[in-house]
């Protein structure tokens, strides 16, 4: 079994309204050291696969086809 952790974020340059709202809230709470906040989502996949290279290429395909909308989002994949 391989666990794949996929993080999906809005691309740099695409305004992240949720990140901005969270940043504003943190600032109101006095956490003034925060300079930027991006809110994304994490998708955790359990794969019936032992070959890490194969897993990486499969998960990349999943991201391109479904998990991310590459018009507005970037993704990264971590295999555990």
């Amino acid at each position, binding site marked *: 079994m391989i666990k794949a952790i996929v993080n999906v974020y*809005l691309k740099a340059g*695409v305004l992240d*309204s*949720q990140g901005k709202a969270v940043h504003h809230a943190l600032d109101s709470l006095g956490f003034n050291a925060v300079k930027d906040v991006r809110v994304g989502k994490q998708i955790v996949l359990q794969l019936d696969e032992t070959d890490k290279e194969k897993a990486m290429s499969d998960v990349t395909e999943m991201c391109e086809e*479904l*998990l991310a*909308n590459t018009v507005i989002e970037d993704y990264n994949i971590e295999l555990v």
Partner: protein
Amino acid sequence: MKVSILQFPGTNCEYDTEYAFKKLGADTEIVWHKSQNIPNDTDLLVVAGGFSYGDYLRSGAIAKFSPVMKAVAEYAAEGGKVLGICNGFQVLTEAGLLPGALKRNEGLHFISKHHHLKVVSNDNVFLKKLSNGDVVNIPIAHHDGNYYIDEAGLQELEANGQVLLKYTDANGEIQNPNGSVESIAGICNKEKNVFGLMPHPERAMEALLGSADGVNMLQGFFES
């Protein structure tokens, strides 16, 4: 005139859409998303609004893999007329039949109210009954209506007359409710046979209910 209306799990505007087109004299048929094809005599295919698949992952992201979507892509490629309203617009962008994407509203709230729209380009079958600069009053009801397209894509849309409608006030001055690039409310593809908009013309068919401005919009499809 035969209007076929797509229905996914979670679609909730199919009956309003049916009412609107029947009122204008069309025959209608609701097509379940598991169907492998769309009715042969279809003159207009509408992807109705709602929350297909509960908006899980992203609005429209799962619906694009429904069996019927292959037939929709073929129908569009052959020049068939397709109209996506609200979630239907999101589905069409996810499926790659329209450029760009719909993001979460800038203010993060679900917005449900009447909003004015200005006609930017009437050089297409959809809006030909209206004139450029006309202002219509149409309900909006969405959480993810913040249209995004990159700079190069925007230039292409503008150059080809693909920007159809913009959010404005009653005087036609830009008023942007959701953060959309250039206040865009609706677009079409380059071939001008696939249309998408976030506002709901099918909910503006009766003056008694606030506005009948949807009539002139949807009627465009009735005359070739």
